[in-house]
């Protein structure tokens, strides 16, 4: 029987998990003699496998635990769709900025202090009453991290990756967005290192809002192009 990669991982990591539980010697012997049985004997648990891997890599000096913590903190707390929302709001109130954003996206985004990993080469595409843009990565999960953070599960999922290019209007319908036939749909497949940000339409009834209030209206989904930005709710604290 062919030994699959997953078997290798399961065997390896469950063994490592057992090692972490203090059963290293016994299982090291087991591994040498009967590879196939070990993963049946100990619990398979991804958390344990990863913990064991991290300990190994720290012990070998290959990773720095403080760097791991800093990376996680960055993407959990500092980089996310609020960045993109600021870019959108600025473009809505400042036509000169909007022009720079659409023509020299990296520089314009950097003006607000954003850029870097997985957003080194940005392309901003504008939604209008006649054109609706949406973004996908059919081959993996490419996404503009500096302005939107890490992608949500649906963006990385097989249903979205497979159908966005062949049935974009059907996918948009699942997000609650029904586009009239007269609106052209443009789908951007992130096959290279270009990362796309949709500049959504500014909703009606927002003329008096401040830049911050406008940014608060802008959702992640509207910047991926699977939703529109909704006007502030009447009487609500938009």
């Amino acid at each position, binding site marked *: 029987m062919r030994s699959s*990669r*997953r078997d290798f*991982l399961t065997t*390896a990591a469950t063994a490592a998990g057992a090692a972490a539980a203090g059963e*290293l010697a016994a299982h*090291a012997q087991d*591994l040498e003699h009967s590879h196939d049985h070990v993963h049946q004997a100990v619990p398979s648990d*991804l*958390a344990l496998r990863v*913990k064991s*891997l991290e300990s*190994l890599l720290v*012990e*070998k*000096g*290959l*990773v*720095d635990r*403080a*760097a*791991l913590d800093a*990376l996680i903190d960055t*993407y959990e707390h500092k980089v996310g769709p609020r960045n993109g929302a600021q870019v959108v709001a600025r473009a809505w109130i400042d036509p000169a900025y909007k022009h720079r954003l659409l023509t020299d996206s990296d520089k314009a985004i950097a003006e607000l202090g954003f850029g*870097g*990993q997985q957003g*080194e*080469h940005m*392309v901003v595409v504008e939604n209008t009453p006649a054109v609706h843009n949406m973004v996908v990565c*059919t*081959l*993996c999960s490419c996404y503009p991290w500096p302005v939107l*953070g*890490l992608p*949500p599960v*649906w963006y*990385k*999922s*097989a*249903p*979205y*990756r*497979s*159908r966005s*290019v*062949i049935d*974009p*209007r059907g*996918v948009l319908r*699942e*997000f609650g967005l029904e586009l009239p036939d007269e609106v*052209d*749909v*443009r*789908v951007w*497949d*992130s*096959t290279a*290192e*270009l990362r796309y940000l949709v500049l959504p339409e500014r909703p009606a009834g927002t003329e008096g809002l401040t830049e911050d209030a406008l940014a608060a209206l802008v959702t992640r*989904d509207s910047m991926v192009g699977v939703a529109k930005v909704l006007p502030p709710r009447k009487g609500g604290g938009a």
Partner: protein
Amino acid sequence: MNGVHDMGGMQDMGPVEEEKNEPVFHHAWEGRVFAITRSMSAWRKWNLDALRHERELIPPAEYLSMSYYEIWLTGLLELSVKTGLVTRAEIESGKPTSGSPKRSPALTADKVLPLVAHGTPASRDVPVAPRFQAGQRVRARNINPVGHTRLPRYARGKLGTIERDHGVFVFPDTDAHFLGEKPQHVYSVRFLARELWGERAKPRDTVYIAMWDDYLESA
């Protein structure tokens, strides 16, 4: 490689399900896998194209059944072993082989913010002439390489129009296999949805695909 990762145009994968108030990581281990992968990549034993390809090499049935960060973990472990940063025995035991050298981490905490802020640009400032101009009609080549490629199957052989030249970038098909960067121009190429999918598509809908010079021929 015509793998299952190349999903554009497949059907019957089910509805797109959005999760309300989704956390960045659903489990602590997912964040650790994300961060370990970024940290291990700092050793520069591989590049992003090689990492993507390693994930594509996961057999289709397993790829489809794995969660996202399980795919990341698999790719990371395979490349770490292939490049000699760790051994399979070490992964199996969870302990360094006795006598193996202790290194100093390539990515330390003080380097995280600069890495995040500057990224790792794939553009190259080298004088390479573009083969195509904006407005030119092109055909995506009908190639089926067994190695890594970023030319999706659904576009192969199809007619499109060069929309914009984005400049010179590393070529993933060679870079993923450590065969050099082969820098060349990348274009946004516009395809009519009808050219890709036939008459059921709306006549003015389009798909824009980023393509390297080597993916294109004159039409």
